[in-house]
């Protein structure tokens, strides 16, 4: 399992310096670390978070947004008509609730649909694993500035240490 401290440091090392989002229990360890490092600005909705990320990018920051896949539904129009349209990149750290169909019922449809949903709106994505983590972070760094659009890193349960559901 990846320690949340190591994970946050890896993101900081490639330039990320503005973090916002809406919590999910899978992200709790990461958010705790970001709060300790005074890097996290809480949002009330995920569309607000991706819009704040666009503002932060235009103000010279490198933004990342944390959310559960439920939040991808909330933010889809803003991602499409702001972040993608205006080419405002951000890293979407998405907790993949309902990945294997074993989760609370509200996560099952979004859990099953997550990769297709991202592909439909053409947001490049990868799924973080302990074995491929250095490569995943390199991919984020390269794709982020080359494409200048949001890129998504999907986090399944048990990959980064935190509170587990």
């Amino acid at each position: 399992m990846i320690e949340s401290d190591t994970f946050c440091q890896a993101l900081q090392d490639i330039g990320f310096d503005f973090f916002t989002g809406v919590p999910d229990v899978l992200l709790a360890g990461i958010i705790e670390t970001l709060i300790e490092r005074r890097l996290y600005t809480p949002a009330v909705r995920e569309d607000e978070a991706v819009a704040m990320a666009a503002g932060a990018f235009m103000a010279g920051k490198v933004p990342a947004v944390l959310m559960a896949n439920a939040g991808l539904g909330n933010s889809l129009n803003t991602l499409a008509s702001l972040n993608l349209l205006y080419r405002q990149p951000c890293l979407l750290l998405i907790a993949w609730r309902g990945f294997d169909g074993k989760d609370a019922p509200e996560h099952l449809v979004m859990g099953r649909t997550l990769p297709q949903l991202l592909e439909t709106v053409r947001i490049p994505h990868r799924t973080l694993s302990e074995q491929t983590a250095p490569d995943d972070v390199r991919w984020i760094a390269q794709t982020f500035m080359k494409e200048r659009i949001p890129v998504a890193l999907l986090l399944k349960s048990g990959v980064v240490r935190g509170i587990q559901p």
Partner: protein
Amino acid sequence: MQSRARAIQAVLELVSDQPVIVCNGFPSREAFKVKDRPENFYMTGSMGMAAAIGLGVALNKPQKKVVVLDGDGNVLMGLGTLATVGALKPKNFIHVVLDNEVYGSGGNQPSYSRVVKLDQIAKAAGYVNVERVREREDLVYEFKDMLGKDGPSLLLVKVTEQVEDVPWVPLPPAQIAERFRKAIA
């Protein structure tokens, strides 16, 4: 009471190099026509998100006063952002709400702002300075005052339903963002 375009003009004449984020629909189109400047960010989609974009700028450019030109329909759609602003209390955030009490870009259907007091919601959320004006001279007085003091501030400007005959903002969205980013750097 003045038209929204007149109110936008009054604000844009009072700013110098301050970043201005304009909400989607006719406000962006009118702002472009009245006084285009590289420090203007014209939002075209993402209704409800103008204040969130402005907040992202304000938090990361604390030395600049950031102005959001918003509408009543937009504020109602992104009402949660009033809480975020009220909680974070960015001193450099000025939220101007051009309130015509209708969805003017969608066919003039009434909005709830004719019965719900958006300025009182902002005050309850924790905005530091909150004012409501109708006349141009009051708008000028209050906006100047807000430019000179710590916020977050919200200025509710009641405007008429009049819409100018204005084209789409002719700049490609990516160019609007890049121009804005460079201008406020």
